[in-house]
């Protein structure tokens, strides 16, 4: 179900601009790893290299290795489409397919992967919506468009859509930054439940959120604007927030810059 991610010597570029430089880290299975750091430090870019979404951007390219258990995602002959079916992603702004109903939104990924019987599809959609704590709110209007839900519900719909295909890893790119505090809380609770089944990586600007939801935290920083972002350190969340081993981390966390 959940796999370990092992990144070594990874750099990502936009055209000739190097966005992140030589990152190596391990992400443990069935845990939540949070990426924090100032804007522009490349944490979102790094996240997008983990499911090969970075190269979708014109000029985007990647050097280095990302091992998912014992398979290199950037190995020759690896299909990026197949990678993205294994590594799911939730975006900053909720992006349900506007023309699809709630049901079809959740079923979208399944329909890409193959043919299911109607009853199977119904079961998986119900299970996924329950998994995303959304079932009770939408079970009476599965045929209504997903864009009619509130922002927080839409984001949980996107999570349901992502977990419906049973990915190995779930990447979340600031999933709460467009949401109100109550919806944020609902998502954070959900993350706590989902880590029983998935490997979760979350990018967040909210340090309290990182402290609340994550088991391990990685701090990214950049030397100056225009310089590539680097991984400063990754450690147990508790240690990062109480007694980090690098001074820059402590400065950032205590609000002395960034």
């Amino acid at each position, binding site marked *: 179900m959940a796999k370990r991610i092992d990144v070594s010597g990874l750099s990502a570029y936009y055209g000739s601009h190097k966005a992140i430089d030589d990152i190596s880290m391990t992400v443990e299975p069935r845990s939540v790893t949070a990426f924090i750091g100032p804007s522009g430090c490349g944490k979102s870019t790094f996240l997008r290299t983990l499911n090969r979404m970075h190269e979708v951007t014109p000029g985007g390219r990647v050097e280095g290795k990302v091992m998912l258990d014992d398979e290199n995602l950037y190995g020759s002959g690896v299909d990026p489409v197949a990678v993205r079916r294994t590594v*799911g992603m939730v975006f900053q702004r909720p992006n349900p*397919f*506007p023309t699809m109903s709630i049901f079809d939104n959740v079923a979208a990924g399944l329909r890409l992967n193959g043919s299911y019987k109607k009853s199977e599809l119904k079961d998986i959609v119900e299970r996924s919506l329950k998994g995303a704590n959304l079932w009770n709110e939408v079970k009476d209007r599965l045929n209504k468009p997903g864009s009619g839900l509130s922002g927080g519900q839409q984001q949980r719909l996107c999570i349901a859509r992502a977990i419906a295909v049973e990915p190995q890893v779930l990447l979340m790119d600031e999933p709460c930054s467009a949401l109100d505090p109550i919806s944020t809380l609902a998502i954070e609770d959900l993350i706590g439940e989902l880590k029983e089944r998935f490997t979760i990586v979350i990018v967040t600007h909210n340090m309290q959120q990182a402290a609340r939801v994550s088991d391990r935290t990685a701090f990214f920083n950049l030397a100056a604007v225009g310089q590539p972002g680097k991984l400063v350190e990754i450690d147990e969340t508790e240690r990062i927030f109480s007694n980090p081993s690098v001074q820059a981390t402590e400065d950032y966390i205590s609000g002395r810059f960034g």
Partner: protein
Amino acid sequence: MKTPSSTTDLPPLPPQHDGSAVSGKAVRPGDRIFLGLSRGSGIALLAIMAAIAVFLTYRSVLALSGDKANFFTTLDWNASGTDPKFGIAVLAFGTLVSSLVAMLIAVPVAVGIALFISHYAPRKLSAPLSYVIDLLAAVPSIIYGLWGALFLVPHLSGLYSWLDDYLGWTGIFSYGGGAARSLFTVGILLAIMILPIVTSVSREVFLQVPKMHEEAALALGATRWEVIRMSVLPFGRSGIISASMLGLGRALGETMAVATVLSPSFLINTSLLDPGGGTFAQNIASKFSEADQFGQDALIASGLVLFVITLLVNGAARLIIARRKEYSGAAA
């Protein structure tokens, strides 16, 4: 700066009027001029529309009251002499059929080209390609007509014989030989003529698909075609409809190209490949110069019908777009 005589104060002072400084109307000359200009333009537009409608209706009524046959079903156009008999059945059939053929050919091709430009072609290719497509729109219709008559017509008889061999049994595609100056040829020509407008409007819509919708599909493991099917086409649906309607509007009203290619006759021929038939615009253009006063009225009446058909087509398109609004993505 010219100051109207009513406001003789220096510019920084508030305009003089009775009552307190904040209540009442403080109209500045610039506002007044622009209000007058824009209101005048609006009224002029309505007045021109009304004048056209009154003119068309008045002359049409004159023609219809003199028509000795049923205006809608008669298969003839004889609007002179003491016993005028004319009807629009042939024209309505020819106009709708040729436009339908044009739409069936042009819309899928145009959507394909637009998708290629917006989502498949490398940037180096998509810019010149868009330019060439837009250039097609700038070619005058008489040029299309000449090309159609001198190149397309002689080269289509081979295709038509082939269609006759395999699909002749349908009745629609039977072909008796001879010059291919038929409604189907007109449809092909119209398809080429409306291709640019449908393509460029669709392309613009496809380029506006929000990145986050495409990424939603990509992140689920969609291939490029699946991204297009899940995100791009649904988002662009109303745009494709609008684009098609723009094209259809042009096809319905196209005059010179049709008149140059078609060999007209007042018969409804179920075989689209055989010469004959006619369209509203082509009929008006070819008969107007030789028509007497009453003949002109009769042609104007047919023009009014074309106008109504165009209105109906546009209304239907708007209805389709409005009904899809709930799903349009505007709320997302």
